[in-house]
């Protein structure tokens, strides 16, 4: 009897473990569930295959971008017999910082995925995970069609293609400017007097939310200011040691930010607000200016905005420095492809690039999603949002563009500048000390990267 009981227990346990194993033995299921499989052939039809496409268009504001992607996917599926794309939408920060990073470490990245230029592309290409695209671009005849592929290029090889671009500058509320009697500034002195006039009327001159983890928000303004004062070469030299954070242009920038805080030109609640809250203070008419990237157009023209028809844009005003006339802009987010794709999958990748990166989609990017195209040659902008047209003009009239400083320095330097600028906003550090700390961090980071 006891033996039987024992046998019964063993049998039950064996059945349970066998059943538990079943869950992960069906490739089709796991493919759909975790989205990291590289696709495979089903037994019924050897020609049909799945490919995972990881994108980041999951927000309500990105509906139009998703629509463009979905249509491209459909077209590509009809071009490549047997191909089925599995769309895998993941939140951008989660994909960039956690999911894709882990997959890259293990070598299980999906065949097509959202990719950032700069350090991400450099690291992944070094590990041999990214597909070089030079030959494909030549074959498709679009090798020279992009505005700027610098952020996706490592040692002459192109590893990614930007979906759209951005520029940064001041958005301003025309009505509030009129109320205060301020005019659109073209020089630093004019900006200061505009801020003074606005403040005198009881209007917050600059909306900003740079609290919590959003120290990068103030750095957009800081970046444009030190490049204006010191020229674009200044930031290119930090990581090589050719230039220093203790440069008079950087110290002067920190002093001007300190002045803007003390005179309350920047919202005094800046450290208690996150980026979207700062943005909302502008588009609900509570503040007169917002220093932000062109991606803000969607929020400013969105349903909750009260300033849709009263918003203008101007680039960072001239300061009398070597960087006058330059604008912060770049093309840093797009798609990358796995180095492991072969045969059919490679054909699918080529078809996807051909169908996604073309004039038609780029025009739609500008008109429907209000984003700056990544490819040249869009001349007919009829139907585009008036604000994005103004931004386009600001971009067109600039002497040139410079990339955000964080694509040129080590992540540690970026994070230290965020914390240091938060301290400056909170009145906890002097400009000279801030510059010294930045240089110390830069020296450490440079020593580590050698």
């Amino acid at each position: 009897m006891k033996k039987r009981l024992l046998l019964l227990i063993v049998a039950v346990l064996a059945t349970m473990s066998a059943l538990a194993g079943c869950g992960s033995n069906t490739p089709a299921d796991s493919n759909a569930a975790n989205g990291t499989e590289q696709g495979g052939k089903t037994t019924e039809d050897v020609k049909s295959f799945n490919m995972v496409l990881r994108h980041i268009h999951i927000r309500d504001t990105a509906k139009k971008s998703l629509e463009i992607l979905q249509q491209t996917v459909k077209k590509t599926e009809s071009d490549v017999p047997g191909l089925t794309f599995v769309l895998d939408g993941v939140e951008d920060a989660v994909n960039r910082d956690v999911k894709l990073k882990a997959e890259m470490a293990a070598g299980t990245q999906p065949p097509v995925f959202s990719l950032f230029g700069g350090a991400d592309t450099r690291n992944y290409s070094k590990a041999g995970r990214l597909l070089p695209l030079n030959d494909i671009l030549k074959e498709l005849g679009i090798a020279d069609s992009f505005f700027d592929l610098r952020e996706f290029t490592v040692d002459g090889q192109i590893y990614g293609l930007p979906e759209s671009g951005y520029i940064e500058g001041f958005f301003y509320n025309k009505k509030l400017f009129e109320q205060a009697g301020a005019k659109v500034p073209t020089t630093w002195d004019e900006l200061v007097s505009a801020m003074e006039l606005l403040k005198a009327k009881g209007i917050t001159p600059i909306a900003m939310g740079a609290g919590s983890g959003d120290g990068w928000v103030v750095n957009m303004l800081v970046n444009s200011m030190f490049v204006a004062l010191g020229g674009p070469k200044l930031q290119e030299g930090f990581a090589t040691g050719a230039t220093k954070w203790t440069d008079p242009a950087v110290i002067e920038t920190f002093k001007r930010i300190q002045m803007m805080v003390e005179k309350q030109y920047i919202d005094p609640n800046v450290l208690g607000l996150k980026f979207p809250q700062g943005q909302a203070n502008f588009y609900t008419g509570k503040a007169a200016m917002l220093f932000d990237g062109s991606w803000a157009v969607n929020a400013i023209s969105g349903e909750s905005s009260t300033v849709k028809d009263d918003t203008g844009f101007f680039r960072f005003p001239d300061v009398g420095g070597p960087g006058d006339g330059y604008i912060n802009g770049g093309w840093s987010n797009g798609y990358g492809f796995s180095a492991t794709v072969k045969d059919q999958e490679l054909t699918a990748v080529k078809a996807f690039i051909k169908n996604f990166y073309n004039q038609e989609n780029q025009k739609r990017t500008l008109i429907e999603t209000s984003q700056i195209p990544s490819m040249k040659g869009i001349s007919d902008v009829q139907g585009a949002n008036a604000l994005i047209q103004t931004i386009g003009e600001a971009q067109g009239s600039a002497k040139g563009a410079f990339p955000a400083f964080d694509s040129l320095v080590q992540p540690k330097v970026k994070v230290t500048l965020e914390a240091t600028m938060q301290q400056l906003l909170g009145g906890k550090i002097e400009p000279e000390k801030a510059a010294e700390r930045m240089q110390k961090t830069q020296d450490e980071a440079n020593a580590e990267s050698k």
Partner: protein
Amino acid sequence: MNNIQRNHWAYAVFVVPAMLIYVTFYLVPLFQSLQYSLTQWNGINDPVFVGLDNFAKVLTDDSFWISFNNNMYFVLFSVFIQVPFIILISIIVSSVRRFLDFYKLTVFMPSILSTASIGVIWQFIYAPEAGLLNQLLRTIGLEHWTRIWLGDEATAMLAVLLTNSWQWTGFYIVLVLAAIFAIPKEMLEAGEMDGATGWKKAWLLTIPLIRPVIVVTLLLSITGAMKALDIILIMTKGGPFGSSEVMASYMYKQAYTLSDFGYANAIAVIISLFTALLALVFHYINVKTREATE
């Protein structure tokens, strides 16, 4: 049944699955963490062995020590403010006759909410302009008391500590209440006849009798304080300028913002060692005080 105990195969059937899970999800990661803590590794390329460099770096890293101190505040706040408050409220509620279930439910409610929701709710409460707290202060004429609670170095950590206590106090109160109700009535009645009433009864009878539950509450509060991460990430992300960082959030930042997985693993090892040490000290104090009272 004795047969099963003597049969090695039966043992294996019961023990091996649990051992496998323990080894795979506990021991292997622990040793891997130790291994990576001795390397410089960005999470993608091959790790480079650097010996004890990461541990040496910890000693001179001011930001790490700020986060270490914040963990200490967390522990001290839990032990000396939160737990006494829990005991006080439990004793008061235990003597209430009417609406007892209502009180229990009300205090327990926050602990069934997710930390994410609680973080967001309290962010609204602490918001500079529209926040409930500042509005309340303005209404009662204490305008000069208003602060940017989560954006001010002086108040950010305290604001998070209060939110964390609000979340967990109810859970512990229900735990302590159950212990109070489990004390035999005869014991309390005998004490009352000997003259122990009111606070005397609470101090001399109730608290010593629920001591085991208080010890568990303290231990859970300490380990909870050492593990704190989610609430910091949601409410302040360690800001402003790293003043509300705790060790776990600092470790997370090193790994996922700075891609310095070697250093992050070294911090993880230090957190584990420190928590073990704290638990040992707590155990020692607990044994000593029990001996002293017995």
